[in-house]
């Protein structure tokens, strides 16, 4: 059977080193198949077969044009994508845009994992404080009180932020998997496979579609990732993004010294193989449950969020500034109520930093890249003569 299949393909693709060679061999194989069909048509004087071969030859020319465009685009985009000046420092040392996109996704995933660790840390701390209760009784006579209830109001926003962050991690991971498929299979397997299928009349629709999928995954997916990263980097360097650049972690000490408050980012054992150590920038004040009496200090009102923000936004860009210090500077920390409110305001400042990473890098980026892939599949499949309604896949976005 192997011989039959090799005969069918005429040339095994096994010796080809690059996808360009494989595509060229697939094109040549298709041309030879058409030549055989034309030859049989001529030999037996079957006009239909000759006409079929001619028609298919035009389709093959269209495929050749597609492949040539692909090769040209690939080279140009590769040159742009691996330039750290344009695509960011994380692409240093990469040689193709797929590698650059993978490095970018790894960097985003590491950041998001660290953010999830910090968010989880705050969630734990706030939940512990909010659930504290005090009890005092002797021989069953006494009282119990949950004096830290104010902290429990901080948990729902943290849960919502966790959902958003988790969703972003999932999206970026899905992009990583698609990129891995693109690197390993789209040009080496899907493209030649599509070219061969497109040679046969019955399977031309599927062949054109597979060619479109291969080209879109190879070109547009990494291009979309890098394009979005360039946009985000540009925005990050712009003054308009100052309010979103709030650091949520401090730098990890050099030499592996474990700082007080340092937590280990949740491990991402998949592909990255590393754990990130992060230091949260904010401390959660401690609540004492038996101190349930509201503020007895008259004349110190809880300030509005606007005044806290105005006072905080200039100093928070320093990674070593604890938001709680900023908040404590403008409001009393005497009672549990004040401490809970201060925690809320402090986290409110930090949440912008979380959203910056999660929404721009982790959500908008994959959406842009996937939309580019969908648009590419539609355009390329139409060019290949088999327009496919990709709205079904687009709904995944």
């Amino acid at each position, binding site marked *: 059977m192997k011989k039959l299949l090799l005969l069918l393909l005429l040339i095994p693709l*096994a010796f080809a080193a690059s996808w360009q060679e494989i595509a060229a061999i697939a094109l040549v194989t298709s041309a030879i198949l058409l030549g055989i069909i034309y030859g049989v048509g001529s030999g037996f004087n079957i006009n239909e077969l000759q006409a079929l071969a001619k028609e298919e030859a035009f389709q093959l020319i269209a495929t050749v044009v597609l492949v040539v465009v692909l090769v040209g685009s690939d080279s140009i985009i590769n040159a742009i994508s691996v330039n750290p000046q344009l695509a960011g420092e994380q692409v240093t040392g990469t040689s193709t845009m797929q590698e650059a996109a993978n490095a970018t996704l790894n960097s985003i995933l590491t950041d998001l994992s660290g953010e999830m660790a910090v968010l989880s840390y705050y969630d734990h701390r706030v939940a512990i404080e909010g659930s*504290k209760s005090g009890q*005092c009784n*002797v021989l069953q006579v006494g009282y119990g009180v949950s004096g830290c209830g104010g902290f429990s109001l901080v948990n729902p926003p943290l849960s919502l932020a966790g959902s958003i962050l988790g969703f972003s991690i999932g999206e970026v991971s899905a992009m990583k998997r698609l990129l891995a498929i693109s690197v390993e299979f789209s040009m080496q397997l899907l493209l030649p496979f599509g070219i061969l299928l497109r040679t046969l009349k019955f399977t031309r*629709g599927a062949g054109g579609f597979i060619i479109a*999928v291969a080209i879109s995954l190879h070109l547009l997916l990494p291009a979309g990732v890098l394009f979005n990263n360039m946009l985000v980097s540009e925005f990050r360097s712009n003054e308009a993004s100052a309010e979103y650049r709030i650091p949520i972690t401090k730098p990890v000490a050099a030499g592996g010294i474990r700082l007080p408050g340092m937590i280990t980012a*949740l491990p991402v*054992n998949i592909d990255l193989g590393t754990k990130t150590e992060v230091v949260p920038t904010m401390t959660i004040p401690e609540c004492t449950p038996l101190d349930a009496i509201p503020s007895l200090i008259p004349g110190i009102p809880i300030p509005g969020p606007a005044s806290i923000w105005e006072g905080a936004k200039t100093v928070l860009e320093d990674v070593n500034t604890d938001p709680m210090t900023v908040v404590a500077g403008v409001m009393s920390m005497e009672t549990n109520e004040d401490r809970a409110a201060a925690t809320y305001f402090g986290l409110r400042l930090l949440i912008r930093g979380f959203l910056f990473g999660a929404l721009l890098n982790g959500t908008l980026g994959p959406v842009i890249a996937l939309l580019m892939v969908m648009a590419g599949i539609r355009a390329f499949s139409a060019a290949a003569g088999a327009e496919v309604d990709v709205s079904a*896949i687009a709904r995944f976005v």
Partner: protein
Amino acid sequence: MTEVCTELSKFIWEGVMPLTAYTSVILAAIIGVSYAVGNALSNPKLTLWSKTEAVQMVISIASVVVLLGFMNLFCTIQVGELATIFSKPLPGAGNDMDLYAAADTYLVNAQTYAYKALSAIRYHLEAYSVLSSFNEFQCDFPIGRFALGCLFGNSGQGFPPFGGYGALMGALNVFFNTALMTLFTVMNFSMILSATLGGLVFIFIPFGIFMRSMPFMRTFGSLLISLAISFMVVYPLMLSVLYLMSDTLLDAKNGFTPLSSVYNENNFPQYEGNALGQSMMGEDYTKAQYFYGGNEENPVGAIVFAAYAFVSAVFLPSVAMLATLATIGYTTRLLGEEIDLSRIMQLV
């Protein structure tokens, strides 16, 4: 030839082909009678119709012959040979499978993959639910883990040592639903393939041949034949190509999981008799009961796993289904009719 092909071959040659031959003969008889009647009545419309339908019948039968040729090829080619030709490493065991068996195996393995993702998330969710509800009471005036404050009553402070897992559980819940949907979707794709390989679409062939030559029914007949060709050729072919990617798509070399830990129902510890130990040994002991040894706490890894499963078990099989539907549209056009597939596309 694997069991799938053996059964399929038996079904075709013993069930479908006689029926196809039967309908073809009836159709030929109808066409012949129409031609004769047209000649007898000197009705050119009737004779022209008969000639046209005779040609269409030949095209229909040729389509069926092409389909049988493809099927025979798919039942003979081994997936390992396909891998060699495309210079891809062989996907572990099972290289002697034919393409139909490879397609089926991919979807079965994808179900395993999705289920393991679901298990990993469920394990974390259950552990976090239990740990969240764990409470500790610290008596006043402590001496080690004992305290004088509880000597004559309960004086002290209660708190949950593990705090809340709201953020992580919020994130994991989203992906638990995703993994569940992934599992159901890939099961759906698997059932479609099973129904296809069980011979369902072959029932369409005799009816398709007959219907294509009936007045006003050519579109319907073309659709039936196209369905048979697309689902018997393109759908399994696409899935068998995905099978070649199993090492990457399904982490086949790593036991169908990208994680170092294997989370399943058997990993949860039994707690009978451990209550005293827990109360005396503190919260770290309790947490170690859930995340110990090979069961590393890895919620981000579980989320990533679910995302991978979605790509491998929903996204790519959907692409295979779209390629199949694209072929239906193209083949019906080839058979001379145009159909609107936008409604069917919404099923994907």
